[in-house]
Every structure is written in C-alpha cells, then in structure tokens.
C-alpha cells in the first residue's frame, strides 16, 4: 500500500522538488521576492490599522479583535496562494496552447496543474498572517477550552481549502473567458479582501455573496466570533463558525464542477 502511494506520487514530487530547487538557486532574486511578498502583506495590515485607528471600533470589533480575523484570513489565503495560486496562469497556458502538454501526460489535469509549481516566496506573506494570529491570540481575552483549540485548527485547514477552491473556480471559468483574469479576480482577490473585513457591517446582498455563495465569512470572521465569545450579526450567527468544513466542501464541489465543464469545453489550440 505504502509502496503504491510512493510510486503514484513520485512524478508530482519530482516536479515540485525541481520547482523548489529552481527558486532557491537564484538567491538574490528569491530574497527580493520574499521581501516584496512580506511588504505586500504588511501594507495590507497597515490599511486595516489606519481604518481602525480612525474609528476605534467598527461593527463591534476593535483593532485587537480584527487582527485575529485579518491574521486567520491572510494566513489561509497565503498558504492557498502558495500551493495553488499559479492556477491563475491558466489563461496564459490556454492562449499559448501550452496547456496541451498537460494532456499528453497520463495524470489528472487539475492535479498536474496544482503540482506544476509552488511559490515559496508566499511564505513571507504567510509569516505576517501567522504573526498576526499569534499576537491577536495573546492580546485578546479568550477563554480557552479544548473545543476552542480544535476550532482554530479546523478553521486553518478549512480556510486554506476554501481559498484554494476559489482558485479552482477561477481556473474553470478561464476556459470560457479568455483573458478573464480580471473577472475572476473579483472573487479570488476580492474574496481575500472580504475575508479580512468585519462581516457585521455588510449589507444583505454582500452577506449573501461573500457570506455564503463565496463562503468568505467562514474562513475567519465566523470562527473568530466563537473564539472571542461574540454574538454574530443577523444572517451570520456565531454558531456557523463550526460549519467551516461544510463551507469548504461546498467550495470544492463548485470548484470541481466548474473545472469539469471547463475542461470539456476546451478544444485545444491546435498545432
């Protein structure tokens, strides 16, 4: 059993190992990328800080509390971005016809695309998210119980799964809309932006769109309500924070379905 798993995953591991070696061999360039990636995340945090500095409290959250939401959302997004973020390049593969190369290999297309690269520089972004989580957990008054620890672990895993699924949605759509990168940005990067917000201030349509259809409130806001012992706003009660795995399943079901119809639609670039 173990042998077959090792044998089956060998090609994927070979590709990933080569990508990791490639990124580490240009040390200066990799260092610049890491620094830039760190800065991106840091400025995003600064924007949240500026807003909460100006108003003190928004939707029942102060800066210490929103830091927890920002940290969880940003950490999960960065991890998803590191592992599957390069799926955003799919529209370029489709236009150039290089996607056909993937069809020649006897492996599932989506799995090949996901394992075709890993962006190590995103680790710097994830570090900002992780630091925010650690600081937020220590400065907020949280009554820890085993259930809370379990909730946090479950949230981090489900959150990464939800954000990864958004990249799969985007990839599926890009088979239909060539150069549709900006269209899918609205829920991939718009989703990341929504996930770091206080969802209590959202209007009903925004709650429907980014609370449930694109389940962004599940990645950080709802679990944070439970950790901080806060009641939720209307339509988004705090107990929904326990349902993040369900949201992840919904997101991946949609992602796989869109990917499937996208692949069926694809006709190749010829040549």
């Amino acid at each position, binding site marked *: 059993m173990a042998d077959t798993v090792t044998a089956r995953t060998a090609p994927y591991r070979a590709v990933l190992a080569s990508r990791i070696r490639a990124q580490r061999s240009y040390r200066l360039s990799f260092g610049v990328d890491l620094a830039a990636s760190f800065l991106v995340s840091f400025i995003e945090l600064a924007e949240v800080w500026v807003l909460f500095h100006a108003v003190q409290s928004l939707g029942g959250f102060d800066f210490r509390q929103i830091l927890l939401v920002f940290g969880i959302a940003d950490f999960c997004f960065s991890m998803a971005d590191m592992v599957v973020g390069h799926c955003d390049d799919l529209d370029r593969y489709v236009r150039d016809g290089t996607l056909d190369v993937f069809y020649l290999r006897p492996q599932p297309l989506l799995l090949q695309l996901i394992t075709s690269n890993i962006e190590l520089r995103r680790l710097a972004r994830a570090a900002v998210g992780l630091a925010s989580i650690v600081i937020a957990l220590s400065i907020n008054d949280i009554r820890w119980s085993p259930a809370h620890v379990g909730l946090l672990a479950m949230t981090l895993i489900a959150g990464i799964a939800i954000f990864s699924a958004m990249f799969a949605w985007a990839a599926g759509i890009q088979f239909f809309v060539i150069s549709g*990168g900006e269209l899918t940005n609205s829920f991939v990067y718009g989703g990341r932006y929504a996930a770091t917000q206080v969802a209590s201030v959202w209007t009903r349509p925004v709650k429907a769109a980014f609370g449930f259809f694109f389940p962004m409130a599940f990645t950080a806001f709802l679990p944070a309500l439970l950790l901080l012992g806060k009641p939720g706003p209307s339509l988004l009660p705090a107990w929904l924070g326990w349902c993040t795995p369900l949201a992840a399943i919904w997101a991946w079901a949609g992602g796989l379905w869109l990917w499937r119809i996208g692949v069926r639609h694809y006709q190749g670039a010829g040549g």
Partner: protein
Amino acid sequence: MPVALAPYGRLFAAGIRQQTTYRLAMLGGLVANTTFGLLKSVILLAAVRAGGGNLHGYAVGTMATYVWLSQGLLGSLNLTGRTDLADRIKSGAVVTDFLRPISLQWGTVATDVGKAVCALLPRGVPSMLIGYLFVGMTIPHRPLPWVLGAVSLLLGITVSWASVYLVASAAYWLVEIRGLQVFYMMVSGFFAGLLVPISLFPHWLLVLASSTPFPSMLQYPIDVFTGRGGVGLIAAQVGWLALVGTVGHVLTNAGRRRLEVQGG
C-alpha cells in the same frame, strides 16, 4: 497644433485605439472594479456611521464619492509600476525608440495617457454611474468643481504615468526591476489613498504620504472634485509633475549613455 507637437497628439490617439480593441477584458475589469467598490463602500460607509456621520470631514455622500471615483480612476492610473518600456529597456529594443525624432520620455507618457483617458469611458463612467444610482454618492451641482476636477484628473493621470516612467528608467542600471516594481505597487497604492483615504491617516503618516507624488495621482483629484481642496492641490500636482518630469529627463539622458545592447 504646432508641428513639433503633432506626433504626441497622434500617439495619444493611437493609445486610445489600442485600448478599445479589448472589450471583453474591459467588461471583466468592470466587474472586478464594482465588486471591490462594493466591499470598499460597505466598510468605509460603516466607518463614517460609526464616527457619527462625520469621519475626518467625510460624510456618507462624500465617502461614497471617494469610493466610486477612486474605483473609476483605477483603470486609468498605473499603480502597479509595470510598463512595456521596462521590458524594452531590458531586451534592448528601446534603441529603436531612441532612433525616432521625438522625445522617448514624452512620447511614452503621451501614449500611456491616451490609453488612460480612454479607459475612463468604459471604467470610470460606469463606476461613477453605479455609485450615483445605487449608493447615493454626492456630486457637485456647480460647474466649477467639475472643471477643476477634470483638470486635476488629467494632471493626476499624467503624474502617474510620468512616475512609472521613472521606475522603468531604473532598468538602464538594474536591468531586472521586478522587486522595484512590487515595492512601487505597494507604496503607491497605499499613499495614493487607494483603499483608505489618506486624510484618515494619523498625522505623521499623512505628512509622509504628502511628501511623495502619490496623493497627486488619486487623492487630490477626488478632493478637488468633492470640494475638499481647490487650486492649492492643483498647484501641488503641477509641482510634482514638473519634478517627476525633470528627473525623468535627466534619467533618460543618463540612461541613454549607459544603455548597452548585447548581441548584434
């Protein structure tokens, strides 16, 4: 138009034609723009209400104007630091640009500003309409803010592209400028007032932002339009344009001597 200026006018028109070719990409851009605008307005309008209807001089209506005008301008400004010119300098293709009997700097900026002005139609106007019809942004009722706003807007766009020209010019010395571009992207968006108006910044950060050309690109045109600022801000924009233009001129001349094209 004087003969010497005619080529820049034609490049401006060519920029417009190039931009109208990609309609679907424009639609996608509009959808993304509107989504970000909605998310931005729910959080910022909630912030104004949390401040009792006035947050650093912003009322609900003017904050909505800030959100939708900034979203509308986004397609016309370059806050990413990336340009074709940087790639042309890296590959050496820029030598053909130098052979032309026009200024590389103002030729490039004129083309980019042409594209940018054109992008106002499919991106800026719908964004403003959405804000006006659905979110209740306030618009000035006298002609003067519209006229000053338009002047300030054009200046803002020009400062933006003239500044990005400087970033590209760094490629004469550095060749690969990706790190610089990412740095530019982060700093320019933050200081231009892209996600949060700079007037909400704490004092020290506001001073820091005001000592860069970035607020001239986005924040000042919006402030002029909404009547938060007037001729003083336009003068500041003109000053930044002069400074950025002069530095660009010096860099172009120095870079031209520095440029080394490999291969035959």
